[in-house]
Every structure is written in C-alpha cells, then in structure tokens.
C-alpha cells in the first residue's frame, strides 16, 4: 500500500469501500441470484390466516430467542427430532425449499428449549400445546419456559392479519385476493393462543415426515411378554425414556385437557377396555389407528406413532407396564390412591422449586 492514500481521505474511503464490497458481492449479493437459493418444496403453500397470525405472535413474543427451527443433518439430531421416521431420506432434516415463504427466516441461534422445525410431527396434540403454553411447568416440571397464559385472553387482530397478507404479497408470497378477503372470517373469535398453537402445529408439515402408515391391527394377538416382571420394568424404563410421561403422566394417570388416563375404565373416550393388542396398535401407529379399533375417539388426534422408533418387543413391554399399572390401581384402595396422588403432587411442586 502506497503511503500516499493515508493523506488522501477520499481515495482512502473509496478503497475501503471496495475492500468491504468484494466479500459482500460474493457472499451476500451473488447468492441472491443463484437458483439453489430459490428452491421450493413441492406443494408449498403460504400459511393460512390463523397460522400467519400465530407466526406474528411467535415473532412478537421472541420465541426465536430460545427455539431454533432447523434440524441439522446430524444423526443424533435427526433421531431426536424424529426426522428418522420420514420415508424419504432427504426429508429427515430441514430443507431450504421449506422456507421459501418465510419472511424473515426464524431458524434462531440458541436452543434453550428444543428445536421446533418438526413440531407438527413431534407433538401433534393441540391440547398438549395449549396446556404447555399456558403453564409449561405443569407438564414439564423442570422447564424454564415462561408461561404464556395471557395469549388466551387476546383476540386475534383480524385487520392486522389482512394487512400482513398484503405486505407479504408485496415481497412475493402468493396470497390471493380471496385469501385476504377471507382472513377476517378465518380468525373471527380466535385468540392469539389459538393462532400460536395452529402455527406451531404447522411446523415441518410442508414435507411428509410421517412414519410409514398401515399398521396391521390384530386384536386377537396376545402380548408375548405377558406380565413378566422384567417386561414391566423395561416398559417403565421405555415409558420414561420416550417421553410418554410428558403427556400421560408418570403413572399413566393422564393429565386433564392434555392426554387421557390409560389405567382407568375408559379407552379412547368410551367405557370398557380393549385387549392388549389395541394398546400395542395405538403406540405403534398413533391416532390414525383409532378407526380400525372401532373407536374414532375424541377429536384431537394427538397420539404420535412410535412404530419407527421402537421395536415391537419394546412396545409390548410398554403394554405390560400399562397393564401392570392398571392391575395395581384396581387392587389399591381409594384412600391409598388419594394419598399417593397427594404425595406425587407435592413431589412435583418440590421439583419445580
């Protein structure tokens, strides 16, 4: 560098500008015109009105401060976020083409809570999502997430949703006039909580990441493990390790408004139990199996399929655990049960502290 430029501020400023613009041109500007930066997965649609309102709430509350939205192509990560269930290998992690309408991207930079990119597949229960947002510690005792119960008291701002659609249309999201006109009716009477839940349940759904369907339901099949002590113990272990307790509770008593009790006199919303094989089918295939069991059940199809994560033998072990738990409940006197519940509640309260 010739010494002269250090006494010529204009020349110096021009050179400094060139120096910063080279990297800018190559790594920021050039990618904007590259085809691989403008891919779109097949059938990608803009978010419907309610989900868009939910995305605005997600942004407003700074959810992106603690939750990422990209599953990286790393083995442990694909397994954790259940991308491993997808039949197409390329659907197992996040794809550029899923985010073509994301203004801005919400991938985040810190995972204080779990990644949410595939949340629509991982926790498809609206009841669970709502209950968790209202009081996270009720469902996950050791969680540090703030409570968002106040969202249930806020109505969705319908004119704002239409304005958002118009603004997004200007940056290239293909909302139609009909979408904009219908936006008000679509969100009428809905709360910000409804909107946020709808948005979260939409995450990852642009790509099919479901487990292979078609679980054969054979209600006559007996549990090969029976009531063996080892099977019950292993079942309990799997129950904890696979997060079953997060919805159905530590002892499978269920949680009000979240997930049903699995050891009472009802199953899938109707009186009367079903054989072990029905439990096996529900764990393996998730809510989709309900009609095949003759019990379409409650509206929320929140049960996820574990068929691709657990071997049949593991699933039977969980059934053994549930059956043992149920037998235990039946023989236990009402008074004992009440005492036990009280103790468990105290334990949870203590955990929270």
């Amino acid at each position, binding site marked *: 560098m010739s010494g002269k430029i250090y*006494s010529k501020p204009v020349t110096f400023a021009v050179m400094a500008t060139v120096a910063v613009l080279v990297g800018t041109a190559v790594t920021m500007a050039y990618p904007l015109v590259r085809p691989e930066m*403008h891919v779109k997965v097949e059938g990608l649609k803009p978010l419907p009105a309610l989900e868009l309102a939910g995305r605005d709430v997600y942004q407003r509350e700074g959810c992106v*401060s603690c939750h990422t939205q990209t599953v990286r192509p790393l083995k442990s990560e694909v*397994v*954790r976020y259940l991308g491993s269930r997808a039949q197409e290998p390329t659907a197992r992690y996040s794809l550029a083409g899923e985010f073509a309408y*994301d203004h801005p991207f*919400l991938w985040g930079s810190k*995972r204080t809570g779990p990644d949410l990119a595939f949340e629509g597949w991982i926790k498809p229960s609206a009841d669970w999502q709502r209950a968790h947002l209202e009081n996270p510690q009720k469902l996950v005792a050791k969680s540090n997430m703030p*409570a968002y119960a106040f969202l249930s008291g806020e109505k969705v701002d319908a004119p704002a949703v239409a304005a958002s659609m118009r603004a997004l249309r200007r940056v290239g999201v293909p909302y139609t006039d009909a979408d904009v006109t219908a936006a008000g009716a679509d969100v009428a009477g809905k709360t910000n909580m409804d909107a946020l839940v709808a948005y979260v349940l939409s995450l990852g759904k642009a790509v099919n990441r479901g487990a292979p369907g078609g679980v054969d339901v054979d209600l006559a099949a007996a549990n090969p493990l029976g009531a063996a002590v080892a099977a019950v113990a292993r079942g309990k272990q799997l129950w904890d390790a696979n997060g079953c307790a997060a919805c159905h509770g530590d002892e499978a008593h269920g949680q009000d408004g979240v997930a049903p009790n699995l050891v009472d006199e009802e199953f899938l919303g109707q009186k009367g139990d079903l054989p072990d094989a029905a439990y096996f089918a529900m764990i393996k295939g998730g809510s989709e199996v309900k009609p095949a069991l003759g019990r379409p059940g409650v509206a929320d199809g929140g049960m996820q399929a574990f068929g691709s994560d657990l071997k049949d033998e593991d699933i039977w072990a969980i059934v053994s655990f549930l059956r043992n738990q149920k037998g235990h409940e039946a023989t236990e006197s009402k008074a004992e049960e009440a005492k036990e519940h009280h103790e468990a509640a105290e334990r949870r309260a203590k955990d929270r502290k």
Partner: protein
Amino acid sequence: MTDYRYDNRTVQGFILSAIFWGVVGIVVGLLISIQMWAPGANFAPYLTFGRLRPVHTNGLAFGLGVGSIFGLSYWIVMRLCKRPLLFPKLARVQLWLFNAGIALAALSLMAGHTQSLEYAELEWPLDVAIVVLWVMFAVNVFGTIVKRNEEQMYVSLWYIIATVIAVAVLYLVNNLAVPASLTKSYHLFAGVNSANVQWWYGHNAVGFVFTTPILAMFYYFLPKATGLPIFSHRLSIVAFWSLVFAYMWTGAHHLVYTPLPDWLQTLGIVFTVFLIAPSWGSVVNGFYTVGQDWSKMRSSYLTKFFVLGITFYGLQTVQGPTQALRVVSQLIHYTDWVPGHVHMGTMGWVTMTVCASVYYVIPKIYGTEIFSEKIANVHFWLVLVGQLLFSITMWITGIRQGWMWKATDAEGKLVYRNFIDTIAGNYPYWHTRTLAGIVFTVGMLFFVYNVLMTIRKGRALERSEAPAAPAAVTVA
C-alpha cells in the same frame, strides 16, 4: 478554544449517555439471566425473556457500544485532525436524537415490535432514525477529516472511516422490509436468503461495531495512556486492509449445517479461519507496543485495561474461527457456549477498552486527574473476575449439553431422549452465570461512580478557576 470546549461537552454527553444505557442494558441482562433459572421472574408480558433479550443486546450494542463509539470517535477525530468538528451543532442534535432513539427502541422491543433479526430487531421507523443518526455521524467524521490540519491520517482514522462505510452498507441492506403497519414489517428476503443476508449483517455488525471502532480507540488511547508509540506501522497497515477485506465473507459460519448451500458455508468458514491473521496483527502490535516497557503495567493504571482487552480480543479471534469449523460447530452451536464466547468479547475486549478510553478522556476534558485510581483498580479486577466466571461457566455447560444432545447408545438410540433431561443439569451453571453477572455489574458501578466523581471534581475546579464566567452548559 471555545469550539474545542463545546465539542468536548458533546463528547462527554455521548459518554454519559452510553454509560446510562450501559447500566440499563446490564441490569436487563441480570434479569434475563435470572429468568433462565426462575421462570416465575417473567413478571408481565412486556418483561418476558423473549422480549427482554433484544432489549439487553440492543441496549448494549447500540446504547453503550454505539454511544461510546460516537463520543470517543469524535474525540479521536478532532485530535487527529487538529481541529474542532466541522459541524458541532449537528453533533449536539445527534446526541439528543440518539438518546430519544434508544429510549424508543427499548420501549418498542418491550411492546413486542420486532423484525426477529438478531441485532436488527428494531422496526422500520426506528431503522429510519438510525440511518439519520448514522448520516449525521458520517457527515461530521468525513467533513472534519477532509478539512483537517494534519497531513497524515493515523491508523485510528482508517478504522473509523471503515466503520462508517461498512455499517452503512450492512444496515441498509439487512433492514430492507415491506411494512404492514407502523410497528410491523416483513423482511424483503425469504428463507435461506433471509438467513444469509441476516448473518452477513449479524456477524459484521459485530465486526464493525465491536471490532473496528474499538481498535480505533485501542490504537489511539494505548499510546496516549502509556506514552509508548505503536510498535509497527507496517503491521497496522497489513492488519487493517486484510481485516476489512476478509470480515465481510464470514457471516455464513453462523449457518453451519443449516439448509444454506454448502459452498457458502465452506467459503464463510475458510475466511473466518483466515481472519485469525489480521486480528492477531493488532494483538501482536498491541503486545509489542507495551513490550517496549512492561513497567507501564505498574506505573500507569490504564495499561492493564488495554493489555487485558487486547488479550481477550486475541482469545476471541482464535475461539471464533475454531467454532466455525464444522466439527466444532456441530457440538457447541445452539448451546450456552455461544453466549460464553460473545460475552468474552463484549465484557472482556469491548468493555475493558471503552472503559479505559473513558478514564483517559474524562479527566482530560477538565485538565485534571481521575477521581480515584484505587477505585479504577477495584473496577478492573471485578469486571475481569466477573467476565471470566461468566464465560468459563458457559463454555463448560455448552460442551456438557452439546454432548448430551449427541449421546447415543450402542443401538444408536439417544441416551437423553427427553430434552428436559439435558436442561436440568444447566441450572447450577445458570446460577453461577447470574453470580458472575452480579460481580461484573458491581465492578461497572465502581466505574460509573469514578467517572461521575471525576466530572464533579472537574466542575468544581472550573468554578474555582473562572468564578466570573457564566455557568457551564451541562449535557447529560
């Protein structure tokens, strides 16, 4: 002389404003560090972690960081150009606009108005205000430099010029958005492009707010405080040009293993590793400068601030490129390691250098000495201990949680399938982080007290020296 006096008051106004917003930002930081382990501390919607985190980062980057950059750059520019600012009144207007802007920024973030782009959260009306502020700054800096009374431009001026240019380019592009209302807009870019533009901005906002202007201070105030000339002018030149050239290529290291095309990730990683060289050019220059006479560490209390500051800059610029490597990124990305890394740079390098520069400037304004060297020493040790405790704790918990996320058994099943099991073990570390924050905050309060007492001493001195003169105009 009258002009010089007036400009000094604007400089002091920026410094005091920066200190004020710094205290606000640090207190908010303490609160959100408590919210990490006590969810009950999310007292109201506008005080939840999600809304307060950008108040913390923006308050410190724009309030403390940019405020002190405005003030100290003006001080440096005037001295190196041997003349007052070309537009002193404009600088005064800029000071008031700056404070109004930061106050509105904090309120709007608490109300949940955000673009969800890190360090570019502010919505478009405030973006416009920031552009106006930056133009005012640019006009005064360039105008004064063009009309200077000193032939050669010293290193610090190069870094200030580069800062003005680069921040303008970055800020304008990344904040391109289409408004839906006064408080809501949507990024012009979508998905992978939105991510790529944002991190091109995000990383270089760090580069041209937390690096180049701080280097300008370092190159100016270190020789001033120690009386030692910069070791190598040639090294300054090489380090400057390679730094400003290489920085802009590196943003994609924030997006390793995301859906961003591999070639962009790799390019970002390569330039990030290269960046060690120019960074260490300044580190070596700093060490060899003080190396001309290490006794300055004892005889001049400011020397240790600069030496520790440049040491943390050196550590930061090796740790950063290490993190960019794919094999390291896959372990520590998204964990608490990253806040640990950031806080070494901000609490170590930036705070040490800015505080030392302020300690140098404030007594000079009044032609007096610092109120108490002893308090400055206490301040030094507290922020050093607080910062080390913070960063080291976060690195440990980051690696710990990163391994728990990855741990699989012989069958390939996750050992810690429930995410909460990987969080539960963070709590003791998060408690320690709050403790570290308290130590650091107490240290900074010693600094604030010392600065305010020095100003009080200086004003008393002015009154006794010129009892007949009208009362000095105060800017705070």
